[in-house]
Every structure is written in structure tokens, then in C-alpha cells.
């Protein structure tokens, strides 16, 4: 707790050795900054200086060096354009426009992306409880819009202008969600593929491609076949999708495979199937169990719908192979495998591949949602406060003296812990009354009055934590955490050919919550081939041919 409370260490300490003059005043990082908040707020951005320089150069009329503005693009986009697109050299004035846009926009890209990546998971979990899907929509949607615009601008210079906005701009932005409104009646808790918009978007891609390539590239059919993947990569990806492609190649391949099947362009499916198969054999696909499970689910959907026979059979083979390898790689009962598909879904959502079920209420609901966000923050602080109070109570729980039992402070701590009381602004508020006043009908004046001072709440939490000191730590208790499942990264474990014989191929993460459940999930009485204990049959689920058993 101590380190969290204290200010950062003084970076100027080493510097002070260079001088013997009394410079404590000048070196004091706190002198002159009369309000810490003000100091934070008025500080220039991280790359303000660099931008100033760039702007000066720009004003002086010199051309900037071409490298910097590609920094924010994924590496594969920073390559020089393929030769067939180089026929239209960019005009100089266009180039300067482009540079200026980058100066003003480029620094924003990482700043915008960070919140999504960092907060998405916890934020998502926080909202899982009340599962109002509409709550999620706005921030993601806005994020996408800005990305869509950026990507469209950045890449249209190298490909055909207009193509980007026509197809993917629509996919990422609101038009798509409006198109999907008709289907949103069936709201399910899990995000769904938006089939209609998906297919429409790809049909648009297809059309645009056909029109553009019709005259000029007809004679280069063969060449086109070869470069079509690269082309798609270069033209049709926004940054979020590109990120998926880099970080989760298997998910990306499965996604693409699925889209080709959906669009009945099965001829293009082969490379993705090939990629998946090679990833499977090289054990790349099963490194991340959750990814592998996602791929299996997708493949199963492909196999279950009408598709060319060879794709179906290859998918089924692939499913089986992945399952076998998964089960061989992660032996039962060895270590719990964290399967968390939420992050995959969130990334897909960020890439514009799924829609959240309630798109059309976004606009009307933006106002109340912001309020809800504001309210959410203090509630988070309240939780922290309640936890601290709980810890404090735990520490004095063995004290049965009358004084401690009758203490008003500890009764307040109890109520804080039980969420009967919470800190609002600079007051302690009964939660029941606060809830009744913060119902939608009466909440408006409360919000406009004064925003909750989260800083106060934070410092209040800090001061309770200080009270935790009333009892010394019993000993140095270094937090012990579960070791990560040990997956040998270098060697590919052998695949047990019979491993699926007794397995539930629709497997999910092994259940470890209780013994009964565990055995219920594992015992397969259908086959008695490998019974080792004939009397009781209790080991019938146990596969004696398994690699881990030998």
C-alpha cells in the first residue's frame, strides 16, 4: 500500500550530485505546481515537440521525410505498393495533404486504441452481470468509425479511391448496423455473426473488384489468382482486422474460410484450409486452447451447412485433427486450461465482424449511458472501499472485547462492507435511499448538480487502507498463484491416434469444481474396451493407450 500512496521517486536525485549549490527549491518537483491537477492537465502531449518541429518544416514548405507517417500502419501496409498499382503516381499536393493529415491524426491512433485493449476485458466482465447489451455498443461503435475513416483515407491513396468507403467503411460504421436492425429482435447474450451485412459487404467487395478489374486485368487472370490474397490484405483490412491477422492467424484464417463459404466462392477457400492444416501440423493452432476451440466451432458451422463436399470433408478432418491434438497437448487433469473466448469475440467485434444486438438504440441512449458510466466509476470505488473494510474487519475479527463489538467505527465498516453505506462526494450515503433517488426518473438533477468526486472516494479508500495497519501482517505472505499450464513450446507432442475414442469431441474446458462433476463429465460407459478394473469398472473412462499414460 505504501508505494501506491507515495509519490514517484525523484528522478532528479542523480542529477543533484553534479552540483553543490543549494538547489532544493529549483529541484523540488512540487514547488510552483500549486494544484497537482492543474499540473497534470496543462502538460503538453507526449509528442508535442516533435509535432511542432514537423509543423514548422511543413510551413517552411519543405517536404517531410516519407518514413514517419507510416509508423502507425501495420508493417505489411508499410511496404511499397505492388507494381500494378504504381501506375498512378500520387500528385505532390496530394502528398502534402496526406502528410498534414498524418501530423494531426497519427498520434491519436495509439491513444484511441489503448483504452479498448486495456479496459475491454474488465469492463466487459463488469457489465456481464447486468448484460444490457446496449451499454457496450457506443464506445466500440465510435472506435470503429474513427478507425474506418482513418484506414479508408490512409489506404485509398494506394488502391482505388472510393472502394474503401463503399464497402468496408459501411461495414465498420453505422450503415451496417442500420441494415442489421431488422434482425435484432432475437437478442441473444452471445454476439452473433451478422450474416446479412457480412454477406452484403463481401458481395460489395466482390462487385467492386469485378468492375475495377474487368477491363484492365482480364488478361492477367492467372496473376490475379495468385495475388488475390495479398490484394485483399492490402485493400480490405482495417487495423483491427489486421491485428487479428497478425496475432491470431488461425482465427483469421477460419474467419476468411467462413466468409468464402458464405459467399459461395469456394474456390478461394483452399488457401485458408491449407493454412489451417499447416498450422495444425506445426502445432501453431493449438498453442492457445481458446483460439483452437473458436476455430473448431467455426469449422463445425462450416461443416454443418451446405458447402462443397471437399470443403466439408476437409473441415471435418481438420476438426478431428485439432481435437486430437488439443487433447494430446492438454492431458486431462494436468492443468486447468483457461478457455476464454471473450477476448476473441471482442477483437472480432472491434474489427467490425460482429454486431452487438441492439444497434439502433445507440444514438438515443448515448446521453444516459454516459451518466451510467459516471455512476459506474464511483461504484467501482465503492467496491474497493467495501473490500478494504472487509479486510479490516477480518483482521480484528478475533477481538471479542466489548469495546470492539460496540465500536461505531467498526459498525460503519460493516455497513460499508455490506454495501449498506457508500461514499458519495464527501458524504456517507445510505445505499437504499441513494438507489431510490438515482432511479431514472429523479436522477437528472442529481447528475447535473455535481459530478461525484472520485478523487475524494479514492483518498477515502486510501485512508481506510491506512487503518488496515492497525494489525501487523502475520508474516511475509507472497501471493501464490496458479502456475500457467506448462505447454512445451518447442517440441510438438505426439498425437495419440485413439484419443478421441473416448472423448467428448464437443468438449469444453474440463470442469474442476467438484469431484462428482468431474467424474460425470469423464465417465463414458459406452465402450468397455479399455476397462482395467473389471470388477468396479470405475476406470472405464481411462484410456490406457493414451500418450500420457505410457
Amino acid at each position, binding site marked *: 500500500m505504501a508505494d501506491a500512496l507515495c509519490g514517484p521517486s525523484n528522478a532528479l536525485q542523480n542529477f543533484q*550530485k553534479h552540483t553543490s549549490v543549494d538547489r532544493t527549491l529549483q529541484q523540488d518537483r512540487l514547488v510552483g505546481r500549486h494544484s497537482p491537477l492543474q499540473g497534470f492537465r496543462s502538460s503538453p502531449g507526449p509528442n508535442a515537440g516533435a509535432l511542432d518541429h514537423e509543423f514548422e518544416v511543413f510551413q517552411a514548405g519543405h517536404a517531410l521525410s516519407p518514413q514517419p507517417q507510416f509508423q502507425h500502419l501495420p508493417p505489411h501496409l508499410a511496404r511499397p505498393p505492388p507494381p500494378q498499382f504504381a501506375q498512378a503516381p500520387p500528385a505532390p499536393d496530394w502528398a502534402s495533404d496526406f502528410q498534414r493529415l498524418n501530423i494531426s491524426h497519427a498520434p491519436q491512433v495509439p491513444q484511441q486504441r489503448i483504452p479498448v485493449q486495456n479496459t475491454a476485458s474488465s469492463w466487459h466482465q463488469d457489465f456481464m452481470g447486468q448484460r444490457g447489451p446496449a451499454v457496450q455498443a457506443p464506445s466500440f461503435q465510435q472506435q470503429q468509425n474513427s478507425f474506418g475513416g482513418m484506414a479508408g483515407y490512409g489506404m485509398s491513396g494506394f488502391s482505388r479511391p472510393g472502394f474503401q468507403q463503399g464497402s468496408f467503411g459501411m461495414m465498420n460504421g453505422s450503415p451496417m448496423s442500420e441494415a442489421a436492425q431488422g434482425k435484432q429482435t432475437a437478442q441473444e447474450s452471445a454476439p452473433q455473426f451478422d450474416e446479412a451485412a457480412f454477406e452484403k459487404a463481401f458481395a460489395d467487395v466482390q462487385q467492386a473488384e469485378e468492375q475495377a478489374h474487368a477491363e484492365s486485368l482480364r488478361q492477367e487472370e492467372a496473376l490475379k489468382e495468385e495475388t488475390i490474397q495479398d490484394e485483399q490484405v492490402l485493400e480490405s483490412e482495417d487495423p483491427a482486422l489486421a491485428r487479428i491477422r497478425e496475432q491470431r492467424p488461425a482465427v483469421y484464417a477460419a474467419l476468411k474460410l467462413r466468409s468464402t463459404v458464405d459467399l459461395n466462392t469456394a474456390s478461394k477457400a483452399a488457401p485458408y484450409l491449407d493454412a489451417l492444416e499447416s498450422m495444425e501440423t506445426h502445432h501453431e493452432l493449438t498453442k492457445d486452447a481458446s483460439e483452437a476451440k473458436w476455430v473448431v466451432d467455426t469449422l463445425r458451422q462450416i461443416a454443418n451447412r451446405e458447402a462443397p463436399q471437399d470443403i466439408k470433408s476437409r473441415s471435418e478432418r481438420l476438426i478431428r485433427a485439432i481435437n486430437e491434438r488439443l487433447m494430446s497437448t492438454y492431458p486431462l487433469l494436468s492443468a486447468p486450461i483457461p478457455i476464454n473466448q471473450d477476448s476473441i469475440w471482442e477483437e472480432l467485434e472491434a474489427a467490425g465482424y460482429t454486431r452487438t444486438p441492439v444497434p439502433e438504440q445507440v444514438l438515443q441512449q448515448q446521453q444516459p449511458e454516459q451518466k451510467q458510466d459516471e455512476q459506474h466509476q464511483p461504484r467501482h470505488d465503492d467496491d474497493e472501499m467495501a473490500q478494504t473494510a472487509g479486510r479490516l474487519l477480518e483482521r480484528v475479527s478475533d477481538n471479542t472485547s466489548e469495546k470492539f463489538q460496540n*465500536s461505531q467505527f467498526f459498525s460503519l465498516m460493516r455497513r460499508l462492507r455490506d454495501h449498506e453505506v457508500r461514499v458519495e462526494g464527501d458524504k456517507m450515503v445510505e445505499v437504499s435511499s441513494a438507489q431510490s433517488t438515482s432511479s431514472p426518473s429523479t436522477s437528472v438533477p442529481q447528475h447535473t448538480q455535481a459530478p461525484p468526486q472520485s478523487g475524494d472516494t479514492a483518498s477515502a479508500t486510501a*485512508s481506510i487502507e491506512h487503518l488496515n495497519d492497525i*494489525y501487523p501482517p502475520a508474516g511475509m505472505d507472497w501471493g501464490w498463484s496458479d502456475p500457467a499450464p506448462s505447454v512445451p513450446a518447442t517440441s510438438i507432442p505426439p498425437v495419440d491416434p485413439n484419443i478421441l475414442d473416448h472423448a467428448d469431441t464437443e468438449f469444453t474446458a474440463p470442469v474442476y469444481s467438484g469431484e462428482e462433476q468431474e467424474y460425470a463429465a469423464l465417465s463414458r460407459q459406452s465402450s468397455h474396451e479399455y476397462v482395467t478394473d473389471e470388477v468396479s469398472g470405475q476406470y472405464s473412462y481411462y484410456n490406457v493407450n493414451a500418450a500420457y499414460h505410457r
Partner: protein
Amino acid sequence: MLEFRTQGFNGYSVKYSPFFDSRIAVASAANFGLVGNGRLYVLGLTANGVVAEKWFDTQDSLFDTTWSEAHENQLLTAGGDGSVKLFDITLDQFPVQSWQEHAREVFAVHWNLVGKDTFLSSSWDGTVKIWNPNAPASIATLPTHTCTYSAAFSPHSPSILSCVGSDSHLRIFDLRTPASASNHLTLNIPIHTPPKPRMGAAAPPGIAPTEALTHDWNKYRDTVVATAGVDRLVRTFDIRAPQAGPIAVLPGHEYAVRRVSWSPHLSDILLSASYDMTCRVWTDGSAMGAGSMKQDNMLEDPMVLGGGREMGRMGRHTEFATGVDWCLFGAEGWCASTGWDERVLVWDARALMQ
């Protein structure tokens, strides 16, 4: 025993005036200092008991107060919003001066007892600041890199000050030293070091470092400092022998010790207030005949060191006891205490001593 009720405000600190034997200042905070306002009480001891002569309300909790040594009507407060305020009790409502430099809660203020023209404040932002009441900004900042819960000037030198904080170290600063990389820091004594093992006795048990919450300079022995904190032990150190460990260890409190204060009359007596809701009077065993009569090698408690012992306890507080102070005047032994039970008690420690 006299009693005053600080209705609605939980006491954090109490200080006797150095000019009048009947005037007491109490810094208090609403909601146990978690959130809300603070109030500075100036209490008078009269024939009719303790009465509030004056009070000042502040925006944020008050955690400490100290009387000006130069002006009998002025006193300082340490605020939860990082402010240090100077009040004049002849004026109404508003402070005479307010300094806002600390980035976190200020937890201690102390007036220079010798120089009388400066005072200090210490804060959770990891600094101790030296101020002049006439200057609009601090005149020196001493980084401690730790949450500094307590800081005080030496009563024997205008330029020596000390502080303790959450890293379990007692720091001694000497402002006469040239400013250098050490920022006037001259001594950094680890509080949790066990005393040196003695011949014929078992080595004392080691204790993990815990937060030190309070300390005080002995008023007669100018090199002796008492510290106390989360590990429930009151220790005394001799800063002439910083590596030797504590010269006395006084176990007894059941929870963390929030405040210690040396007697202004007796060189071996100190008073402590603790989260176990008691105030206790101790001797550190340095006075002749005051300590335990036992041989060195026959200590009953392995923690006890230096022959000190608890002389008495006052258990009237019903919540955490947070502040104690001795009266400088009259018969030795009068003291005041405050706590989170919204009460200020004025009592005679001699009645408790055995």
C-alpha cells in the same frame, strides 16, 4: 477526568497550548476522516469543565494541529486536501494563511521549538516541507520517498528534524549540512532492526518492517527519539549510535500505536495512544529505579528491552485513541487525549501510574 464531546467529528490530534495551561487545540474530521469536513476546536479548561472557545470548519478532514511557538493565538492544521492552514483564534472563520503544495494528505505539522520562525509539514506524497509563516511558498522540501506519517523538529536544535514513515525508517535531517544528493539527510535508521544480541541471552526475534506511524523527541536527552507504529511496539533510539538498534523496546499495545509523546517533566516517561482504544504510560527504564528490577538475563518477555515497562493505562476511550499530549504547566502528569469516539479527555496520568 474532564471530558468534552466533539459532536459529529472524530478527533485526530490534540495539543496543549505552549502559552496557556488552560487551552487545548483539537484537530478532528467527520466520518472518521474518510470523507467530509474537518473542524479545529480550541477548548478552554474552566471551572465549569471543558468548553469550546472557538472552532473553525474546513473543507477537508484535519489530521494534525500544532500551536505556533511565536504567537499565542495562532495555530496550524494539516488538511486531508494537502493544505496547511494557519488560523488565528482572535479572528472568525477563515485562516490567516493557507499553503497548498502537498499533493496528498498532510499528516503532521510541527512548529520549530527553538528557532520559532519556521515550521514543517509532512505528507503522504513523500515529502517533508519546511515553511516560514511569512513566506507564500515552502522554503525547503525534503524528499523521503515514503508516506511520511510523522515529522518533528528536535526540541534542542533549530535545524535538526526527524520523520518516520511507511518504510519503517527513522530519518534525521540536519538543515546545516550543505545541500547535496542526500537532501540534508544525515541519518536513516531502520526501526525494525532487532537489538544486538547480548552475551548469555537468546538473540532477539527478527521482525518484518512495518509502517511507523509516530515518533517524538525526548525533551531532556537530546539524542533520544521514541518511535511506534503498526508493529505495536514502542521503541527508543539513540541517534548517536544509529547502528546499535533500539535502546528500549516496550511491547504491550494490542494494535498499532498511533501517537507517542515524551513527558515534558520526566525524562523517562512517555505516553502512547493506540488503535486498541487505550492510552498507556510507559517508562523506558532509563531513570534510576524506575524500570523493572529484574536481571538482564531473566527478562520475562523476549521483546522487552532496556528495562522499560508499562506504568498504567487509560481505557476510557471507546474508539481508537489517536491523540495525546502533555500539559506543560502545573503539576506534572496532566495530559489530554482524543479519539474517534468524538471525545476529548483531560486526565492526570499520575493517578494511573503504579
